[in-house]
């Protein structure tokens, strides 16, 4: 399923503009060390973490998009970095469990 379709069906708010990639999986983590050892390319990363190191880790793995839960908002420097490396950023007021449940209901594993 494409990012745009997921965003529409789950009420995500786009933070930046990026390529509308097909999501191949989901990974939930707030730790950069965990992301680089366990996440896969083209996943949708769900996180609370808004530190720059998250983008550095996500880019290394080729993460397609990041969803910041619980209304967390990244700083402009993080948005600029995500734009530079082509990672789509989204925000939601949902907590991690609620948003992950929405993805499950869409059939995304």
């Amino acid at each position, binding site marked *: 399923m494409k990012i745009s379709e997921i965003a529409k069906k789950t009420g995500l708010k786009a933070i930046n503009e990026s*390529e509308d990639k097909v999501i191949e999986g989901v990974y939930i983590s707030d*730790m*950069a*060390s965990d992301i680089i050892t366990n996440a896969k390319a*083209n996943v949708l990363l769900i996180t609370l973490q808004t530190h720059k*190191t998250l983008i*550095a880790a996500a880019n*290394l793995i080729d993460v397609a998009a990041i969803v910041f839960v619980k209304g967390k908002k990244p700083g402009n420097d993080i948005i600029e970095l995500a734009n530079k490396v082509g990672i789509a950023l989204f925000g939601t007021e949902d907590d991690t469990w609620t948003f992950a449940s929405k993805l499950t209901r869409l059939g995304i594993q």
Partner: protein
Amino acid sequence: MGEGMGTCNHKWEMTDILYGYLVVEGCPRCGGRASFFSTEPVAPIDEYKEGDHFWIYLGSSQATKFNLKCTKCDDVVHLDDLMGLMMSTCEEPQCEVANIAKSEGKGTSVYVALCANSTHFSGKCISAKGIDALNKYFNQNIKTPGKKILVVPCSKCCDIDICKGIVIADVGLTDIY
């Protein structure tokens, strides 16, 4: 039985993954930086003399260490000297890393492989074999067309205190809530 190591077109995977702390120390006498990886429950904080150096604790963050293993021939590249990876954002004109990034262009992200001793007094940094394996590992998994990861050793940095970048470590975790 895997392919012969000399002819194998390696397919790397992470192995021997450890989670712990990246501890950074500094020597006020020479300005050197040293780091080590600790798997102790709490990051050790020590001050000690080593030859002409007097190492003091500068900080620590949660981090990970790993080796790379070929799934075809079982060859293992040990990355004992790899203390971390730093996404380069350096634009210093005299910095080799910055110049590499500039010459590579938009689709390439340059990451610096950080070794244990930034002063490189011993002449050692991450091995060429290690850098080669890291490059193949991270690029083999990329799916975005035109995207490339380029890993370079920290010996190419202009100065570890000046060279700009984002170290992949779990800093800022106390800020997320």
